[in-house]
């Protein structure tokens, strides 16, 4: 497909979702029309995203779109590279599955009060975050996504939902504020918001220490959104309270938007002092993995256990990024031989590719596990593990499906999780991050234990006699209302269908990982080589002038440094950048 054709398609997923949301508002109260519209809109978005992915994977191009014709860095820029395209497709895929699942899971009252509008607005905002080419646009996308998710979370207004929402709302607003502060400070320092432009200008930043502080602000802001240790507490407090379709959508999408933003910003903007942020991320990742998996082992509610497991998985993604940053930073060391440096660089690229594969695997599997939890809730009316059981006998297919997804999450071979972890572990070993690899493997074992325990408790053991008696539930799950059982056989089919499709997908990726891996490796290479992104987004004349300016600034500063013998140490670690000289 021609570059112009691809550029025309870039805004389509965003626009489709938002237009669908608006038409759904116009059709307020007519739920069956909204249902059809919602499915059609999501399918259109998924198909355009797929075309974008195919176009970018075959051509290895990066497509910028200048909104309103204002060239970067002045206007709003949308950029699709391979990583964005992958995320867009996953957005559409998870969105479509959840929309269909919701038909069997969401009750009429919620549908009448704008469920479809909110889902579409959230999907549109996520798509916008994935293609945003400047940080402020990304901030706005985050806010739109947050406000839709706030309302989705509280829609229905049960006690559990409201209590969960308070924690979710409070901590996410703190995160947004930190994000805004970081963007503001960065703008004050370099006077631009465009991601490509920022990366270039930061190579000549006057005060690298201040840049590192801002980088840490970004780690905290995105860390809260992504749900990393010690910032994840809003997640398990809220994700098990809304209907399962909403839980599944949140678990598949929201935290991954945070992870996406983290990878984007730290691969394209903060190019100096990468080892510093990389080390922080690796520590965060290790703690996230282990704490999430261990906490999941002691939970008494099915979806709450899955929420902690979700936190644990985020650790792997952050680990991929952290290892890559440290490896790239080490590779820049001039004392290294050319071969060693190239090997480190390759390890970093593999690590980021592994993170991309992990995101894809995780979005599919985790959404699916929440689908199964919803099906269990449909049968028993609650999700309290102690009062569940016997499903292996009564619903063998359900038990099998959950088991397959659970094993995939634990990273057993022939499932998608195995390949994702293999890439991350191999990259970690090649880059010399031995202890984090150890933690990752240990977490795999703990995950196997927690998921095995969940399966044995929910599906294998005999059901207690009063399993469906809601009056005997503890306070934890008493706040959650029972799922609707009105739609009968059709409802079960609408919920089971997406679950079967997602299970098939994780097995397919497990058996034929080459396709996903090929695309992810290309995406990793694009992320590793920032100059591709920069020269695709910024107009040539502007870029040449900017680079000349940067060289001049650095030269002037070095001259000044040479003049001052003892006062110049603070400026000594300004990166004498190899990209500038290229």
């Amino acid at each position, binding site marked *: 497909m021609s570059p112009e054709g691809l550029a025309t398609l870039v805004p389509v997923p965003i626009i489709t979702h938002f237009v669908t949301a608006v038409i759904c508002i116009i059709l307020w109260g007519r739920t069956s029309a909204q249902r059809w519209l919602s499915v059609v809109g999501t399918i259109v978005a998924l198909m355009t995203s797929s075309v974008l992915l195919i176009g970018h994977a075959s051509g290895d191009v990066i497509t910028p779109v200048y909104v309103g014709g204002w060239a970067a860095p002045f206007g709003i820029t949308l950029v699709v590279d391979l990583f964005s395209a992958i995320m867009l497709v996953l957005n559409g895929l998870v969105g479509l599955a959840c929309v269909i699942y919701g038909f069997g899971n969401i009750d009429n009252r919620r549908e009448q009060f704008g469920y479809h509008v909110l889902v579409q607005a959230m999907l549109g905002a996520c798509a916008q975050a994935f293609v945003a080419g400047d940080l402020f646009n990304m901030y706005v996308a985050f806010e739109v996504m947050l*406000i839709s998710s706030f309302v989705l979370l509280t829609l229905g207004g049960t006690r559990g939902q409201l209590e969960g929402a*308070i924690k979710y709302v409070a901590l996410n607003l703190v995160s947004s504020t930190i994000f*805004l502060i970081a963007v503001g*400070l960065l*703008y004050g*320092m370099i006077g631009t918001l465009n991601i490509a432009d920022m990366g270039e200008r930061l190579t000549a930043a006057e005060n690298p220490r201040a840049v590192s502080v801002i980088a840490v602000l970004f780690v905290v802001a995105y860390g809260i959104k992504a749900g990393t240790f010690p910032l994840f507490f809003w997640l*398990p407090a809220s994700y098990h309270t809304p209907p399962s379709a909403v839980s599944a959508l949140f678990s598949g999408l929201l935290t991954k938007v945070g992870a996406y933003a983290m990878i984007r910003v730290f691969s394209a903007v903060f190019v100096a002092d990468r080892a510093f942020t990389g080390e922080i991320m690796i520590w965060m990742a290790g703690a996230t993995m282990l704490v999430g998996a261990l906490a999941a082992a002691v939970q008494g509610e099915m979806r709450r256990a899955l929420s902690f497991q979700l936190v644990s998985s985020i650790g792997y993604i952050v680990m991929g990024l952290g290892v890559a940053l440290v490896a790239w930073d080490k590779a820049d060391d001039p004392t290294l031989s050319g071969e060693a440096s190239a090997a480190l660089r390759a390890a970093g690229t593999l690590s980021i590719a592994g993170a991309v594969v992990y995101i894809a695997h995780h979005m599919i599997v985790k959404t699916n596990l929440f689908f199964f939890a919803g099906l269990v809730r449909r049968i028993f009316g609650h999700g*309290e*593990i102690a009062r569940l059981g016997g499903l292996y006998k009564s619903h063998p297919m359900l038990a099998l499906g959950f088991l397959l997804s659970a094993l995939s999450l634990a990273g057993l071979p022939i499932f998608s999780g195995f390949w994702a972890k293999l890439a991350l572990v191999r990259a970690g070993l090649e880059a010399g991050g031995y202890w984090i690899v150890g933690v990752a493997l240990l977490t795999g074992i703990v995950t196997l234990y927690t998921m095995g325990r969940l399966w044995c408790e929910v599906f294998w053991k005999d059901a207690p006699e009063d399993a469906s008696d809601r009056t005997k539930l503890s306070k934890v799950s008493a706040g959650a209302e029972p799922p609707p059982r009105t739609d009968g056989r059709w409802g079960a089919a609408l919920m089971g269908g997406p679950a079967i499709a997602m299970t098939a997908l994780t097995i397919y990726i497990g058996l034929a990982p080459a396709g996903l891996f090929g695309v992810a490796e290309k995406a990793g290479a694009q992320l590793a080589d920032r100059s591709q992104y920069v020269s695709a987004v910024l107009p040539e004349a502007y870029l040449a002038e900017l680079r000349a300016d940067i060289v001049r600034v650095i030269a002037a500063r070095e001259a000044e440094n040479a003049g001052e013998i003892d006062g110049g140490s603070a400026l000594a670690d300004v990166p004498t950048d190899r990209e500038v000289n290229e």
Partner: protein
Amino acid sequence: MSFLLACTIGILFATGTYMLLRRSFVKLIIGLGLIGHGANLLIITAAGINTEIVDETGAIVEIRGRPPLIAEGEDVLGAGAADPIPPALILTAIVISFAIVSYTIVLVKRTYQEVGTDDLNQMTATDLTLTDAPEEPSQAETGSTEVAA
């Protein structure tokens, strides 16, 4: 001026954080609002405010932060004009935070109706593992009176 603004921002962040750490959910909203204002002021300060740059003798060598208005008959902003982007950012942020604060106020009201308290310590139903969940709801209520007393 920058110094004054920096102090104001610091006070806003400090009081905002203090309010965030209170147990009352209403105070939490006030805290978020204060921090939001602090963030907006921070953006405008970080991006550069109206300042006069003086040399050693005290003479003004440069003025930054004039109103960003294009003089008649010209096509571009004159020297020393303020950057119009930070106000645009802040305007967007204010509109967003307005919507979000409205939402949270409704959320507080609904939660108060449902739970009967705005004390965050009492809203633990979604945060307990089964082992430390009280068996009967009456225990939670006795617990709440103790806290209140």
